[in-house]
């Protein structure tokens, strides 16, 4: 048996994230003891109507979220317990709502920092209704082998180590959450473990104090002894002592009290929980409490460390007198399925990767590009073109190469509003479309006729150079197999009206001491084609392509240089239109040649 929480306990959790975390922990316990999840509902108005998925073993349990406690208990009439995880400013209202629900018999409040007055009102209301209000600031309640309310008991491994999967003989009542776990562990190591452990919270006026729970334990035949972990301040330990001393009790009472250090500290210095306050004239001091408990006949070890041996001694006596029998441990216990991450860490599974990357890694404290930390690149003077080199071609390019790329980007960043890309972006911007979509509208234009010839130009020039073709051979090859030469020809520019960007780039690259076989070949091609027609000049795509091939960039990356550079311009156009609050554009009729059939009658549908 146990008290307060058992196999018939079903729970509604009032609150958000913290409540969900508690439900996960509770599900782990339910899984360990092979009962279904005891959390049937959440109450959290902002998410009402949705559900939470709580992991249970290797599966998930769907738990609905309601707006009110009444709705939750209407749909799940087995609910008899509420755990309150609502913020301190709304805890009173939430606690009252739960107490006032006729289905609910136990309300345990986990919320910390609840005003004292509110806690007292809740405690008083529960007493009047004959219900239990536990907390505030409670870590929870756990009955070994039957029910866990809250995160008390800790991680799954600890539940097993502390033998919480089966009943022992010791009841535990603590103000401290962390120490509840410690005592549960001690009981499992020095004796046969616990029946029920209750965190009553460290506030000055816990909703339910030691005495009420001692009464319950006294009436639970499975519980043979109760351990109280007390603190200085208030008088609930004294009341427990009074209860124990009042008449012969079936349960053995053991207790420790903290706060002796207070005797040697500057006066008024306050430690620990809210309730840990010494009163005037030494009442509520650790010594007063410890003496009261001792005088009432409780076993009070001098230190916390001495509690283990004292529990052991009490347990050995119980065994000798036949009051308890050595527990039988189950042959096997469910193991909590590991997450993939944990299982991989333990070398237990192998997972075939879904994708493979060879360029970057962001799993550390900063991104690494081809293995080089970004901050180190910055601090050692590297620039954007080097990052392009690392991510596109997996190599650290030279300063000179970086300078060429920088110039290519600067020359191609924008080409006014009339070109397909910019126009696409501008039309989208004027239609009120957002930045990324508008820029995408511009980028979509990049293709064989606009800006997208760089890759192909590079590919064919490279093919010619690699195969040592003459210009004539190349032109024949192109005409036969592919058509016009990409990178040659311009809508507007011509021999007489040369493209200054091309001149600039060619001039710079030629001024450097580097081999440019591809560029040289492209210029030879231009010499021939421009004679045929004076706008068949080497255009900016072709120039970029030839130079980038000469630097050694892979052919497939070449369009990227145009896309990257032109994105700068497209963003500029979007911001520019946005700044002007431009209106929706509609094409004027006079700009359209309406070549569609004249208006005519629609024949009857056959």
């Amino acid at each position: 048996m146990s008290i307060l929480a058992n196999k018939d306990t079903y729970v509604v959790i009032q609150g958000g994230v913290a409540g969900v975390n508690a439900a996960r922990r509770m599900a782990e316990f339910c899984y360990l003891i092979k009962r279904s999840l005891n959390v049937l509902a959440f109450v959290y108005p902002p998410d009402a109507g949705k559900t939470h998925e709580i992991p249970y073993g290797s599966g998930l349990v769907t738990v609905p979220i309601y707006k009110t406690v009444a709705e939750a208990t209407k749909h799940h009439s087995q609910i008899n317990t509420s755990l309150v995880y609502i913020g301190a400013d709304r805890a009173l209202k939430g606690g009252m709502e739960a107490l006032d629900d006729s289905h609910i018999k136990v309300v345990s409040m986990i919320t910390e920092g609840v005003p004292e007055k509110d806690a007292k009102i809740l405690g008083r209301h529960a007493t009047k209704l004959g219900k239990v209000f536990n907390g505030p600031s409670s870590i929870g309640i756990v009955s070994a082998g039957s029910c866990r309310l809250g995160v008390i008991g800790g991680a799954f491994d600890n539940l097993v180590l502390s033998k919480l999967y089966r009943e022992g003989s010791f009841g535990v009542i603590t103000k401290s959450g962390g120490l509840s776990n410690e005592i549960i562990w001690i009981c499992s190591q020095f004796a046969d473990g616990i029946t029920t452990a209750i965190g009553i919270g460290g506030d000055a006026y816990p909703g339910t104090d030691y005495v009420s729970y001692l009464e319950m334990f006294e009436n639970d035949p499975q519980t043979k002894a109760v351990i109280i972990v007390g603190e200085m301040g208030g008088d609930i330990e004294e009341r427990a002592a009074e209860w124990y001393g009042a008449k012969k009790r079936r349960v053995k009472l053991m207790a420790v009290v903290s706060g002796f250090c207070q005797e040697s500290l500057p006066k008024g210095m306050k430690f620990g929980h809210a309730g840990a306050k010494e009163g005037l004239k030494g009442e509520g001091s650790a010594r007063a409490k410890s003496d009261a408990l001792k005088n009432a006949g409780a076993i009070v070890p001098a230190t916390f460390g001495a509690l283990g041996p004292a529990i052991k001694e009490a347990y050995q006596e119980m065994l000798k007198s036949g009051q308890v029998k050595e527990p039988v441990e189950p042959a096997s216990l469910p193991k909590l399925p590991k997450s993939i991450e944990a299982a991989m860490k333990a070398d237990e599974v192998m997972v075939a990767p879904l994708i493979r990357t060879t360029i970057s890694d962001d799993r550390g404290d900063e991104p690494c590009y081809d293995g080089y930390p970004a901050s180190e690149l910055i601090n050692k003077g590297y620039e954007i073109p080097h990052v392009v080199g690392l991510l596109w071609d997996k190599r650290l390019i030279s300063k000179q190469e970086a300078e060429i790329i920088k110039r290519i980007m600067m020359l191609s960043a924008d080409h006014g509003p009339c070109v397909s890309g910019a126009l696409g972006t501008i039309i989208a911007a004027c239609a009120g479309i957002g930045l990324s979509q508008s820029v995408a509208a511009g980028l979509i234009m990049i293709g064989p006729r606009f800006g997208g010839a760089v890759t192909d130009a590079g590919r064919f020039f490279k093919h010619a150079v690699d195969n040592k073709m003459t210009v004539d051979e190349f032109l024949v090859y192109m005409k036969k197999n592919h058509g016009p030469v990409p990178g040659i020809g311009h809508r507007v520019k011509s021999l007489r009206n040369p493209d200054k960007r091309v001149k600039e780039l060619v001039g710079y690259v030629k001024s450097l001491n580097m081999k440019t076989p591809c560029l040289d070949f492209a210029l030879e091609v231009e010499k021939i084609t421009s004679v045929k027609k004076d706008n068949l000049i080497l255009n900016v795509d072709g120039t970029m392509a030839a130079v980038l091939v000469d630097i050694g960039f892979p052919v497939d990356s070449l369009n990227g240089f145009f896309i990257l550079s032109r994105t700068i311009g497209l963003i500029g156009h979007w911001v520019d239109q946005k700044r002007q609050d431009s209106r929706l554009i509609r094409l004027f009729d006079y700009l359209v040649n309406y070549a569609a059939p004249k208006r005519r009658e629609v024949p009857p549908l056959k």
Partner: protein
Amino acid sequence: MAKVLEGPGMGLMKKWGITVPNYVVVTSVDELTKLGQANEWLKKSKLVVKAHEALGSRFKLGLVKVDLDFKAAEAAAKEMIGRQVGSITVSQVIVSEMIPHKEEYYCAVKSTREGTDILVANCGGIEVESNWERVKRLALEVGQQPSADALEKVAKDAGFTGPLVKKMADFAGKMFACFDSEDAQYLEVNPVVLREQDGELIALDAVTLLDGDAKFRHPDWNFAFAAEFGRAYSKHEMEVMAVDSKIKGSVKFIEIPGGDTAMLPAGGGASVYYSDAVVARGGKLANYAEYSGDPPDWAVEVLTDKVCSLPGIKNIIVGGAIANFTDVVKTFGGIINGFRKAKSEGKLKGVKIWVRRGGPREKEGLDAMRALKDEGFDINVFDRNTPLTDIVDKALQNK
């Protein structure tokens, strides 16, 4: 529990209809001089000047001066403001009107488990402390309001007679209203005096403890809470408090000058058991500290930094029970970063570190601590199989 200085305390009482003497709180003599021109009572009445700080024994320290005219009050203010008392610099004085009186009484309201106690005595000042049996009590249940009859009865029981019965009952009723409405935990007026000129009961001195947790519903609490242990908070304490106020979970830090055993344990409950163990072993605490509720690692790092900065420490106790949901790896990560930083700043020389902990991811966390040995830390790490406070015994066994 949050202590409020006399000025704002009197302000709250005044709000609920309790008569208090005229008073002003000033931070400079100039301010007082200007107020003297604007407030006739400062020139006409005899005055009391008190240091307006969370200091005990102000009388003994000469920080209360009575029966002064305005000139003398200015002189007293000048003398007090800026005075250094221990770690506190007096930055404010409260100047109040002296109330000529013959009789002194006592009234207090305090929170009890069952509800509220109203305490009344027909003696006051130090007399009440030596005659505690003369204090009469009206016990109220949670949510109960005191009736006029009950208040008069307790006044009569306390020995008030004639018109004073009703006056004291009224006074106590207003004290209760203030207590109940302001989320107070303790209100005490000692003495309550009978003003000779008009026979009105006046609250001469106020002790006000409010429930800091209820601040969210009192937007008019525009005053700072005072430190409760007779000294101002130190810079490091305030830094940790600032962190504490903005995180999930908590970090706490109080310095105790002169100690050599530094505390860095987890848990509001366990931390006190650790402190007890140090004292029981004859050690001297250099601080109190505590982190709990799965605080972020950076908050624990700040706390660690302050602990490592304590002067003259020989041992650091990184204790903790078996955590429920505080992640050991994460919180230890904060401590480890703090230790590394301290070491790089030349701290922790000759300091032994003692670790004991359990809880979620305990093995990984303890392994990480153990690895600090390779970095030259003098560190001893124990798991859940070592009883909670045994590390204190080990640390202090050569004492």
